[in-house]
């Protein structure tokens, strides 16, 4: 080699890029040429700058752990058989020869081992995607809403893994709740509690299924959730309800299914936020002798969930649910059916004589027996329903169950008023009361009737509620507002007395006409130790209304030692209690009645002279 080495040659030598011959030649030249050796050092020095980027990089333990965890942490990922490449070659050769000799069609395609990006495969298994993260994956995506196709698993199908998956492998393994087919609400007003029973058709695959449900922004009690298949009961098993960590308001049911296709499921849970209240509207006749009473039920939904076409049932009366909730908490299978299915109660309505606990069993399990729940055979439901819906009432021991006819859609944050009953011409008593101890100097109007057959009621108890009373006025059918009030639960055959507030047109005016003492008694030193007081009262009752009214006047005397002399116009008198007297009188329209009484009260040693007979 003549002359000196150019930089390219020096680079090739420095980085071992030259062929064997060239390398020997370069070595020989460098051995003899000091100049080129200097240049070689210069080239090496120049490339030493690359060392500036040669720092060590260490993998953190965290990253290592993450990678190992990602690889599934020790689960056997695929059965495989090791075949050394030499055997694979022999096998390939044998197959080639066999194909040539036997088939003799010029077919030369030997069964070569599968090629990976780096040569033949290690395993005999096809290089398909392995199970990731230890959870079997399925190529098909599990969806709802497909055609209702249901077929029992064939015997030849792959056996279902015995061990359930710890968690869904990915989002495609999860199924969210499909649209509900039917829903039944049983609203327990006394405890702000509603039992929701809904039916949804889930599409299951054979094997393990994950069903995800969310209850964010609702008032659903997640611990009360229960899921139960309504068909294929022996072949579908709801295994567990999992509340995954770090996921709020989400639960996942693990379902083992031996069938594939759509299966109806019943989901039961408690929620708050649904309430109902009763209210009534009474229209008095012009003479206030009869009243038309209409009962309504208003259902409000603030539960955060919309219930479409729901069968709504209302519980009247106070239900002691605390014991029942405790019972739910103690049950053996917390997320199975809360109560065994109601074989004995099918199609029955429990009588009042049956026990209260059994009544709740009926609520929880009676859905199958409710013909209208599954069938919805009342025609139109929800919005646009024109005909008045009937509310069916059933007695259940201490409670009463009102079932609203048909179905109702109750959107979230909506209220809905439904008519409950209507009774025409209930005989009522228009009563005015005067009692200074309770209402001061005002006369208060009451409307009284009874919840019994005589008053054209009595079929069911009347739930707590408010009532507004109107009165027909004039011949044109106009109404005048008379008053409103709240009343408590009224059992059958109990008297109802509605307080309509102070009356302006009926006045009671007691006037003290005379006062004096008498019958004094003295002790040994001449001091008074006994005496009588005498009050003379005149009571005027004025009725400025155009109808006759009945008035009760109560007089309280502050002592039980009293006697009375009555005179004037009143219909009845009775001692209401030991220190109260009651005068009853009917007052014709636009008229006035007066009565008087002289009250003698005994004091001190004179009390001994008092006799009850003289009241």
């Amino acid at each position, binding site marked *: 080699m003549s002359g000196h080495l150019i*930089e*390219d040659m020096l*680079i*090739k030598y420095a*980085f*071992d*890029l030259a062929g064997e011959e060239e390398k020997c030649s370069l070595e020989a030249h460098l051995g003899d040429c000091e100049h080129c050796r200097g240049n070689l050092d*210069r*080239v090496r*020095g*120049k*490339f*030493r*700058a*690359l*060392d*500036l*980027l*040669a*720092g*060590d*990089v*260490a*993998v953190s333990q965290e*990253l*290592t752990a*993450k*990678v*190992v965890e*990602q*690889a*599934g*942490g*020790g*689960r*056997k*990922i*695929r059965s*495989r058989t*090791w075949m050394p*490449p030499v055997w694979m070659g022999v096998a390939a050769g044998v197959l080639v020869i066999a194909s040539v000799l036997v088939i003799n069609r010029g077919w030369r395609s030997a069964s070569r081992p*599968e090629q*990976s*990006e*780096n*040569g*033949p*495969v*290690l*395993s005999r*298994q096809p*290089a398909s*995607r*392995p199970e*990731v993260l230890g959870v079997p994956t399925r190529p098909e995506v599990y969806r709802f809403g497909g055609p209702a196709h249901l077929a029992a698993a064939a015997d030849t199908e792959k056996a279902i893994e015995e061990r359930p998956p710890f968690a869904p492998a990915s989002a495609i393994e999860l199924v969210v709740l499909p649209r509900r087919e039917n829903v039944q609400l049983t609203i327990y007003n006394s405890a702000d509690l509603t039992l929701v029973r809904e039916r949804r058709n889930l599409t299951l695959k054979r094997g393990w299924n994950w069903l995800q449900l969310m209850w964010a922004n609702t008032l659903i009690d997640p611990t009360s959730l229960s899921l139960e298949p309504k068909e294929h009961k022996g072949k579908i098993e709801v295994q567990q309800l999992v509340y995954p960590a770090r996921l709020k308001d989400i639960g996942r049911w693990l379902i083992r299914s031996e069938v594939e296709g759509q299966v109806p499921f019943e989901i039961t849970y408690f929620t708050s936020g649904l309430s109902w209240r009763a209210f009534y509207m009474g229209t008095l006749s012009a003479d206030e002798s009869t009243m038309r009473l209409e009962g309504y039920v208003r259902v409000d939904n603030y539960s955060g969930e919309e219930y479409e076409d729901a069968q709504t049932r209302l519980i009247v009366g106070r239900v002691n649910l605390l014991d029942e909730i405790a019972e739910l908490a103690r049950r053996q299978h917390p997320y199975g059916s809360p109560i065994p299915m109601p074989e004995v109660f099918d199609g029955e309505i429990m009588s009042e004589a049956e026990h209260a606990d059994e009544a709740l069993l009926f609520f929880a399990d009676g859905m199958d027996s409710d013909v209208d729940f599954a069938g919805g055979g009342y025609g139109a439901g929800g919005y646009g329903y024109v005909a008045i819906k009937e509310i069916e009432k059933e007695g259940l021991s201490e409670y009463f169950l009102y079932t609203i006819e048909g179905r109702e859609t109750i959107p979230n944050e909506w209220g809905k008023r439904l008519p409950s009953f209507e009774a025409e011409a209930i005989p009522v008593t228009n009563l005015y009361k005067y009692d200074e101890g309770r209402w001061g100097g005002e006369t208060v109007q009451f409307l009284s009737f009874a919840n019994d057959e005589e008053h054209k009621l009595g079929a069911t108890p009347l739930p707590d509620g408010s009532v507004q009373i109107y009165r027909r006025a004039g011949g044109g059918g106009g109404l005048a507002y008379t008053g409103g009030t709240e009343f408590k639960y009224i059992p059958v055959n109990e008297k109802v007395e509605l307080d309509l507030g102070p009356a302006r047109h009926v006045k009671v005016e007691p006037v003290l006409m005379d006062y004096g003492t008498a019958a004094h008694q003295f002790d040994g030193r001449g001091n008074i130790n006994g005496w009588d007081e005498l009050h003379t009262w005149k009571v005027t009752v004025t009725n400025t209304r155009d109808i006759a009214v009945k008035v009760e006047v109560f007089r309280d005397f502050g002592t039980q030692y009293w006697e009375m002399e009555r005179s004037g116009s009143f219909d009845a008198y009775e001692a209401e209690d030991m220190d109260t007297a009651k005068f009853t009188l009917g007052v014709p329209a636009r008229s006035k009645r007066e009565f008087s009484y002289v009250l003698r009260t005994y004091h001190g040693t004179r009390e001994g002279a008092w006799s009850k007979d003289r009241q």
Partner: protein
Amino acid sequence: MMDNSDKSLILAHLDGERAAFAELVRRHGDGLLGYLCRTTGNRQNAEDLFQETFRRVHEKASTFNGSNFRSWLYAIATNIVINDWRRRKRHPEVSLDAMWQDWDGRGSGLDTIAATDEGIEPSRAAQREELKTQVRSAVASLPAKQRLTLIMAYYQQMSYSEIATTLGCSSGAVKTHMFRALKRLGRLLPDEAGGVS
């Protein structure tokens, strides 16, 4: 474990031994992460690709032919890196220069120099940092195959035949890539770097 070659570790992993995979990660992790840091220029990105590489190793373990695990591993990693480059080219997030910052956990500002290069005069440290930036830019400017070859050969100390297996080409082609890379760097790098290293 009697035989702890890479091949036996892969076989053990296929049989479900957790420790085997962990050993593979420990054995090749540092080198691979260095490779990914140098190819991507970004530690965070490199760690993501690192995870992705070992995920694919796990998935494709049954296709490993048992010859050279490192080549196989780097082939997987290289495919991932190339895909990452393509993705970033379509959706650029950072410039190439910026990509090369901080992959080794060091910044390039004077404050960083003063804080990290103890014992070196600040002026020399600044000079060194400037040279480092120059080298990064020079390497980053290389075409993909030349860059990958240079990184594997120079920094990962892989033989040319190993690189050829990794890149799926002949050793001659690898040498050509390496030669062209060095020639190009020869023009870009300053004459003498020894004084500041």
